[in-house]
């Protein structure tokens, strides 16, 4: 068993535990490489099927290629695709790109808040109708009690302390100082009413592992990750105004793997292209406690 086989099996095991234990389960799909690998792992776990909805929070500032890609594969793989958004905030125009919020405040409004209320079912959810190929209002407003999220331990300090099954209280808060024990493939699957559990199948993966796996499995990822001739590519995807491309001439998955394994990115943190990480001294912990992933 090589390292990728080990990582894959562990993630599959976690996904199957989640599916058995949580009646109202969903997976967050940000369209980035991490959650796309996670989606692929779900197809591995359930033998080609994805037996729960995929939730995407659309900040309206995502790059258009990402939305195109999302809908293409939602149709092709017949995914149960659900989209949520902070419509009121966008309508008010109070955002960072409009110069009315800091980056962190903007993240909080368009991601944290939107996520929280989409998961709880308080705000409208749009769901893809596969007959028409269009999104329509989802009649299911049941809160999701299990939420599968593609975070990794190596991304940032507080994430290195995460559990595979990580409880959130009634206010969506993460109590980092008092987390449940986890051992021998037994996880926290029981939870009090009103609380929910986040499930992290990718905790043990590094950026290099992900790209190696994408290469091995030939997983389609969005073109923004590759240099299109401008000698620039995205290493991590987010909202257009807050994500900058890195200088790189990698045009294929194999070139990216080489670049991360031994090349220019071997020792440079992945999220270095994300502007909002630099604003907050306590790292993402404040935002994470707040429910932003």
């Amino acid at each position: 068993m090589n390292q990728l086989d080990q990582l894959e099996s562990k993630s599959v095991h976690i996904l199957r535990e989640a599916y058995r234990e949580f009646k109202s389960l969903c997976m967050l799909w940000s369209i980035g490489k991490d959650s796309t690998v996670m989606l692929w792992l779900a197809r591995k776990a359930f033998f080609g099927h994805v037996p729960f909805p995929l939730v995407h929070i659309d900040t309206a500032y995502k790059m258009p290629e990402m939305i195109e890609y999302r809908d293409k594969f939602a149709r092709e793989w017949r995914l149960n695709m659900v989209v949520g958004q902070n419509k009121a905030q966008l309508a008010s125009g109070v955002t960072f790109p409009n110069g009315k919020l800091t980056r962190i405040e903007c993240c909080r409004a368009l991601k944290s808040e939107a996520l929280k209320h989409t998961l709880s079912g308080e705000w409208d959810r749009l769901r893809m109708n596969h007959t028409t190929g269009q999104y329509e209002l989802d009649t299911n407003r049941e809160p999701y009690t299990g939420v599968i999220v593609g975070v990794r331990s190596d991304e940032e300090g507080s994430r290195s302390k995460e559990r595979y099954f990580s409880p959130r209280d009634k206010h969506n808060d993460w109590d980092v100082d008092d987390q449940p024990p986890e051992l021998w493939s037994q996880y926290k699957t029981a939870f009090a009413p009103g609380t929910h559990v986040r499930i992290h199948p990718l905790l043990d993966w590094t950026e290099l592992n992900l790209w190696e796996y994408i290469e091995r499995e030939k997983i389609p990822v969005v073109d923004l990750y590759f240099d299109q001739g401008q000698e620039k590519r995205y290493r991590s995807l987010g909202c257009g105004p807050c994500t900058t491309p890195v200088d790189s001439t990698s045009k294929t998955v194999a070139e990216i793997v080489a670049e991360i394994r031994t090349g220019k990115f071997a020792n440079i943190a992945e999220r270095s292209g994300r502007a909002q990480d630099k604003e907050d001294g306590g790292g993402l912990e404040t935002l994470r406690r707040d429910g932003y992933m």
Partner: protein
Amino acid sequence: MADTVALEREHMDIVIVGHVDHGKSTVIGRLMADTGSLPEGKLEQVKAMCLANSRPFEYAFLLDALQNEQAQGITIDTARCFFKTAKRHYIINDAPGHIEFLKNMVTGAARAQAALLVIDAEEGIQENSKRHGYMVSMLGLKQIAVLVNKMDLVDYSEKTFERIKTEYTAFLDQLGVHPSAFIPIAAREGVNITGRSELMPWYSGNTVLGQVDAFIRPSENLDKLFRMPVQDIYKFTAGGDDRRIVAGTILTGRIKVGDGVVFQPSGKESVIKSIEAFSAPERTQMEAGYATGFQLTTQIYIKPGELMCRKGDPAPHVRRRFRTNLFWMGRPPMVMDKEYKLKIGSTQVGVALAEMNQVLDASELGTVLNKQQVDRHDVAECVLETTRPIAFDLRNDVEPTGRFVIVDEFEIAGCGIILEAMDDSGSLLSAHIRDREFHWERGSVTVDERTKRSKNAGKLIILHGPYGCGKRRIAKHLERALFDRGNLSYYFGISNFFEELDHDVHTRNIGRERHLDKLGDLSRVIVDTGTLLITTITDADDFDLEKLNLLNAPSKVFVVNVGDNTFGSFKVDVELSYRPDEDEAAEKVIAELKRQGILTD
């Protein structure tokens, strides 16, 4: 740093443990810094932060990322660090040393295949140096290296090092643990971390880095008995898929297409027809470590939670009572007479603390406490009893199927290893029945007199079948038919109420047990009045009905099965087809009741 490609790369999880402030995080921080494993700019960033807050720089800040950790200068939760050498990729789990965070230390240690245990040379062996040593061995880690840290504070004295080595070796001996090495280090000074130091010419062994690479990756349990907990059974019909797949992660051993398999505790058998996978090359053989799925040659009815074994291999134990070593992490203690949930493999079952043998203070082995409960951070040797039989191995035979966790309310509060399978006859259930019968005081009307009057003996009649099979309709119709012919019959509909509860995954097993217990006790009374008590049950197995038989003794239950018969060796009294005609069904049941002499006219 050079790196191998994924296909041939080895991976290992390591944990670093030891008493609070003995320097665990510093060892890891230093190891990362000295091997160039930190992301560019990270060290400078932490140094700048310390300067800005006018605090001395600590290597530990590279790992103690939580705000509270930096404020208090301690590790609260285990951090995972990614680290690589030319030999392999590592995840190093930096565990906290403070007793308050023992559950976090356990979480980190349980992930690892090898441990580094840190002891402060000046402070010497402390309470948690021992407790962590004990926990590491209980969690099943076989490889431990001891780092004697802060040698700078004892003038790099060989004598001090040797004294700690002798004393700690004696302690580990009691646990049957034999450390791979003792290494004198000064983590903060970078001594013996990645390079040998002039300061201790008397030491010629490995550095920490050398020792980490010297750990051996344990063989993946390939040569053991085949064991796979059935995690789930899938039948996804989308896109015309008609596969029925038994899914799970193989814990030990290997299996191939054509092999016979036995599921425990049901004892049902089948043969592997195919190994299923999505977007992967076809395989005819699978082995420990893989999360996989199988199709079987026959459509047997099994449930998630069973243990899949190879036919002909030594079988696991199937019991309700077993002796364990149990470690408790919950704030409320584990007490007798309370029902908890036990999780082993993919099974969840109700469990109670049946007998306490002794409580061990893990920091001072041998201190035996006479207690009737297990307090936080105690290790207890005790007997547990589950509400239904489970399949398991002894920890020394097959480790992964010989260990379990215990859930109190919503939290994992305990973990343990199974030492011995016990005889079930002393069970809490039999004690309950003995007690009940002993106190049963009879009136003056005899059973015969009752039978003469209503032309029937008392009996619990169970209609069993899946949801929607028509069993409730038949049950009510049968009540009417019996009543109309002059018998004493009663349809007990309340059980449907209990069954609604069973839909919830979390109460499914435990709620169901309680329901059966109640039904058993209640029917014992009503059957004694000479009544034909009719009720319905969904999705029962052999054990459920045998338990009802026990609770109904001296009477036996009368079982009418509707639809597919999913029982193993249990013999039902009447078989009906799915959604049968009610008149025909009642007729068939009445005929059998007559044949058995339950209806006397």
